[in-house]
């Protein structure tokens, strides 16, 4: 009887621990590709788990410029998001600018986070911010 109780207890503990760990595991986001279709560049990011569907928007920040038009997909426990960037705006972007994705706007329009803030938020478990390194137009050929 006692061993059965301990067995059930250990199962419950294991279940709680794994589900908590799963909940805290933050999506890993990286640039997948960027392709031009007509007058639009589709910059696609891949995610290690499905991206959320909610009221707010994912925002791609390149320097002080924000891009919000996007399309999401998910397959087999993973996700992608493609940001739709007009080619003329893409051409105006500068290489070397800070690049990150956020869920909602972290900063007021036109404001940039400090590098420390970006690092802290990227490393935090909250599903709100992912640093994507420095922008380069060369991703269009990726």
């Amino acid at each position, binding site marked *: 009887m006692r061993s059965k109780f301990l067995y059930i207890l250990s199962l419950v503990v294991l279940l709680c621990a794994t589900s908590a760990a799963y909940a805290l595991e933050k999506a890993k986001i990286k640039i997948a590709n960027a392709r031009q279709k007509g007058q639009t560049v589709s910059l696609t990011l891949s995610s290690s788990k499905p991206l959320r569907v909610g009221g*707010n928007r994912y925002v791609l920040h390149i320097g002080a410029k924000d891009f919000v038009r996007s399309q999401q997909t998910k397959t087999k426990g993973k996700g992608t998001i493609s940001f739709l960037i007009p080619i003329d705006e893409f051409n105006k972007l500068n290489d070397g600018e800070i690049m990150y994705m956020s869920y909602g706007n*972290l900063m007021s329009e036109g404001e940039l986070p400090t590098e420390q803030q970006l690092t802290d938020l990227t490393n*935090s*478990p909250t*599903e709100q911010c992912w640093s994507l390194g420095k922008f380069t137009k060369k991703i269009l050929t990726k």
Partner: protein
Amino acid sequence: MKHFSSALPKLLGAIYILLMTCLPAQAQTPDPGVTGTYAVTKATYDLGDLAWRPPSFPSNVEVRGSVHYPTGLSGGPFPVIVFQHGRHETCYETADPTNTDLTWPCPTGWQSIVSFEGYDYAARQMASHGYIVISVSCNAINAIDNSLPDAGMQARGELVQHHLDLWNTFNTTGGAPFGTTFVGKLDLQRVATMGHSRGGEGVIYHALYNKSLGSPYGLKGVITLAPVDFFRKIMNGIPLMNIAPYCDGDVSDLQGVHFYDDARYNDSADESPKHNVLMLGANHNFFNTVWTPGSYIAGGADDWDDYVTPTDAHCGTAALSNKRFDTTKQKAAFLAYASAFYRMYVGNEKQFAPILNVNDLIPPATSLLDTTNVYVSWHPGRTDRKDINRLDTSTTVTTNTMGGAVTLSGMVSSGLCGGGFTIPDCGISGMFSSNEPHKGSTSEKGLDQMRLRWNDSVDYFQNDIPVANQDLTYIDRLQFRAAENYRQTTTGTKLNFTVQLIDSAGNVSSQDVSSASHALFFPPGSTPSTLPKIVFNTIQMQVSDFTGIDLTKVRSVKFKFNKSALGSILVSDISFVNQTCGKMNAAFTDTFNTIYKVQFNNQSATNAFDTVSWFWKFGDPISGVNDTSTQQNPFHIYSGYGTYTPCLYLKIKRRNGTICMDTICKSVVVKNHAGVNQVIEPEITIIPNPAKDYLYISGAESTDVIKLIHLYGRTVFTATIATPMVQLPQNIAAGIYTAVIVTPRGNVYKKMSIQQ
């Protein structure tokens, strides 16, 4: 144990007295969250997944919804409420409901997620009070809205309008699937909306769209529930209530506060009030049962725990002593406040005004909230408000909106900030959008506000009142919005300061902010980029509480920082509230005393300095001149047992000469000594109605008497009912009369129309 038991009542009594002493106001307001008297029926309609194309949308969308309505629909037409849900997964796989997707229509083997049914609990509540509540599905828009320049907002507005058009058809000619069930049953000039999340911005777009079409539907109120506000459209001219959940893990910057902020002074003729309700433990999803984990088969999430952190001390459910609302509490909170809003602005039930106007700080019992859970802001309409200092331009730091001088003395730092464009931000370092929801930027409007930091009890911020505005005896309240600047305040500190009114002779009357309001608090939680948050709440004081000064000559309003040694606050919207009729609300109680005698007690709310008069009409015209009274608390001896409808006509004369009137009528049951309270009315009928030459009275005894009493109380005809057919004399004027059948069994009253 015995000793403890005997001490317990005293202890509880002491706690009660302590609580009542500490709380700034008593809960005296009726509870809007109580279920109404109508039985409720639910029905759904589905015209197809791709039934209609919104003009601004690239593809067809579903026309699908639910309706909750008073069962039987007798007594209509009923006012209408439309709900619109926000963005959420649209489909789930039938074989594996954990697999959800954002596509439309749902492919074979998948089912649609019924987000529109997630507010059924609120729809039932409002329908029980006599509303027809429609909730519309928006899955097709959700499936592709992110790829559109306007995020599908215009289409959301168009879809609400399309459903109203559809219901207009159901209301006039009828149509499938309801046939003629709803013909004549909807009052489409009394319509209100609620939009959740993206639906919140959607109903703002709808209000503007309806207006652009010439307002075919009469919008009386709009609720934005945890909304997004991507495009900063401004709605004026319709009462607004924004609900901001502090633990929102989705729209965590509470951007819906801009709907309130942006609309305040945008239209100088705007008579519509704005409300903001900050719910300190609510998250984003739990307002919708379909989005709530465990309440629906697919797609639910606790947005705060799942996407921010479950360990935040305030919002995280894994934290000990966290203050998150559970699902029951969150829905109850929404229900109570939404019900107050709809019933006040659509149903004209003014008794709920104190909840929305920050006059009664104790939440309704049905909300399950306490005073630390909820904070309300109120921006009255144009003529109900006299702005002292809007703090909206750079000149208002020297000359206020009324034209009086502004003095800042001894402050560590102060200045106008936060408004965006040319007004600088408030210089609070390390803040993210979610920490500062009201903030603007160089390209976006924010909330103009005054930052005030002090470290000495002689520091003050003073606004002088020009002579023309110094008579406050017809002003009800002084109010402003404020928030603690937590970056410059010791963690956990609840700040306090003094508000002083100074008359022309230099006499000073003071009130502590902490004794009038609980709205100045250190915002809780500690999660980088998200908590704490600075959210403005209204602090309000009764002018009549400032005693010992000449209220006809108040020359200054002074914030004196002599209570907390150090502190930093942000302030906006300093104004006097001068509602035309103030808090006037007619009300009375009735007590059945002895045979036929009822004692009436006036319970009406009026304002300080009002001259009040009462006129009672007891609904007993057979009692002649005794049917009326001008006493405050009269009694009336009824002429028989039965059900009567006495009315109180309340009249107030305000200090500025304005006359206001309000009326309340109630049903009163009068019993005889045997406790009988009514005759069996169906036994006696009178036809035809309208009548012209005769009345046919069935069910009466030959000794019973009929009287016709004009609305003004004059008996114009009396006859014994010897036979059922009673001839009417030629000289009875056309009009509405009360026919009273006087019987030994009690009197029967019928409203009759007489035609010439």
